[in-house]
């Protein structure tokens, strides 16, 4: 027999559902991770299989500075959100700007590295299997960084105009998930290309 009351109207606990923004962004991250996984798989499969042309050791320079910048930008992004949550909008703008700058340094570093490889070393996507898989994998990551930089810039503009308030913390957190994802992918790409594949 039932021991509950005949009339259930109010639920005992308040009705809590996960955050829509976070779930949506995590889903996007899952899909993008699957795309990156395939490019990483192709890269790993083709290690050492180029028939000719330069090997990774011959043309790759480990992007230490860029990597440090990109990984630190996750930290500064985290600090920015924490500041916004505590209504310290000035500090938020500062850390957000630093995040943007660090990301920009990473991209500029990649661009310089590529310029050297393409024009000085004559190493392109057409050169060999290494070229094909390197430029596509690192390029795919770089394009995701650029999209992130566009988003960062937009929020920077809003922040400078004084439009970003503590109630927007949740939305900035959703965006930060994307940025952390970009960082995490770089860890995987860096390990695959500059450590595993050299």
């Amino acid at each position, binding site marked *: 027999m039932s021991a509950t009351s005949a009339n259930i109207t109010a639920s005992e606990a308040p009705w809590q559902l996960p955050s829509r923004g976070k779930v949506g962004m995590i889903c996007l991250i899952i*899909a993008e991770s699957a795309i990156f996984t395939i*490019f990483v798989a192709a890269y790993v499969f083709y290690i050492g299989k*180029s028939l000719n042309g330069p090997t990774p050791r011959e043309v790759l320079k480990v992007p230490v500075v860029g990597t440090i910048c990109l990984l630190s930008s996750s930290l500064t992004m985290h600090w920015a959100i924490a500041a916004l949550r505590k209504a310290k909008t000035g500090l938020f703008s500062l850390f957000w700007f630093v995040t943007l700058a660090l990301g920009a340094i990473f991209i500029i570093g990649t661009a310089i590295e590529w310029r050297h490889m393409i024009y000085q070393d004559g190493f392109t*996507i057409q050169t060999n*299997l290494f070229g*094909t898989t390197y430029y596509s994998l690192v390029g*795919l990551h770089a394009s995701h960084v650029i999209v992130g930089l566009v988003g960062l810039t937009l929020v920077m503009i809003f922040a400078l105009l004084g439009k970003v308030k503590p109630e927007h913390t949740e939305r900035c957190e959703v965006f930060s998930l994307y940025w952390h994802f970009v960082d995490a992918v770089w860890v995987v790409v860096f390990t695959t290309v500059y450590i595993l594949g050299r």
Partner: protein
Amino acid sequence: MASEAVPLTIHKSPLAVVYEWLGTADHKKIGSMYIVYALLFLVVMGIEACLMRIQLAHANSTFLSPQVFNRLFTLHGTTGVFFVAMPILVGFGNYIVPLMIGARDMAYPRLNAFGFWMTAFGGLLLYGSFFAGASIAQAGAAPDFGWFAYAPLTSAAFSAGHTADYWNLSILLGGVGSIAGGINFVATVLTMRCPGMTLNKMPLMAWMNLVLGGLILVTISPLTAAQMMLMADRYLGAHFFDVQAGGSVVMWMHFFWIFGHPEVYVLIIPCFAFISEVVPVFSRKAIFGYPAMVAATVSIGFVSLGVWAHHMFTVGMPSYGNAFFVLTTMVVAVPTGIKIFNWLATLWGGKIRFATPMMFAVGFLFQFLIGGLTGITLATAPFDWQLGNSYFVVAHFHYVIVGGIMFSIFAAFYYWFPKMTGRMLNETLGKWHFWIFLIGFHLTFDTLHIPGLLGMPRRIYTYEAGRGWEIWNMISSIGVIFQGVAVLIFVYNMVASFIKGVPAGNDPWDAWTLEWATTSPPPEYNFAVVPEVHSRRPLWDIKHPEDPDWKYE
């Protein structure tokens, strides 16, 4: 309480109506557009099938040239997977799931619209290839390399002009639309449920659309990646699938089938959802083993990601590679079998009502089972070495696609058409549709197993006489006539019922899930008052307050 919406009659100019539909973000309108779009392409796909079966009815036939035949089977497969099956299933999910969970709309309505229009334009782009055709010099014609577009046939060297690009880009667009849909389904089911509807109390269709969304995210993306690689090969001089540079064409196969196999589970999981809604209502019993059904669906989602190379048994993978995929493919049959047992257990002891939706559902149960069994046959690698790329494979997948997916889609139509339009579909016409289609389906696809066993390869435009294949091909082609007639009856039924069918009311089937608590069709806002549920069958609780489900769950 059912909402008492009194429709206002506002006179709208035709242009305003068109603009309203073009710019809508309402899940019901988008769902309807997905369904109508898919039905149009279903007709196109059917015509392609008819032409092929006419060509194959006789030995040494010259009805179609080999080039045209190749384009037909490529487009038939590509259209069927991407522009018929996926849109129609996503369309039903879009329309019904928010209603079932007591929500106002999907989690991301504008993303929903974006997904639809991407899919729509993808389909138009694919068929644009017919018009671009050979009339524009070197522009290429419709794709003709099979729906799996194996490398290196699709490379710049072997596919001149833009033939491969039509395939590549149209599917890429459609894929982006599907990923958008996947994100939306997961977010909707996880974050938009009405108060009281814990995950454990959702209708099974909501669970299955959740698994569907997640599976779409990891299934379509590998294809997107492979297509980017193909574009790089064709236009940037990359060497992903370039054997002369040391590349591997088998890698395309791996990447394609890493997409392609879970894709068929993406197609069947919504069908499981339809059956899980129809069978209980027409057996007058709650679904047997709800937790097992959820667990089975989730495990199918996961295991399906590990079986892809059973499409590659004849490629020459090492023995341990083949063995691994034989085993995983057999494992995925286990949760599927559990679901079939649970549906049967739902029927057992129920008060079965053979309305048209139930007839199609029962047809599904038999036919999907048989299709699954021929799948297990093919999963045995040595068997596949004989039957791979033969008509046995064609018969197998059409059994699950037509006998399974198509039948469950028909069931869904007869079940939910009243909700979407406010009119019942005609039962007599429905029964005619069912029986004629059943006969046609079995004539066509039962017989096709035999030429397969006798060695007839797939994708051949004709065959010589005297191999013992002619009679089976002829019977198979005759079956197409029945299927065509049945589909015409169905289309007529839909149009006539839409105009002057019997008014349905809120709940014509005496069902139990929330979509039946609102009017038919639902008002724009779905529910005037946000529902609160306490069990898996909220309408049962409302209709039977003296014996509610929450006492037993």
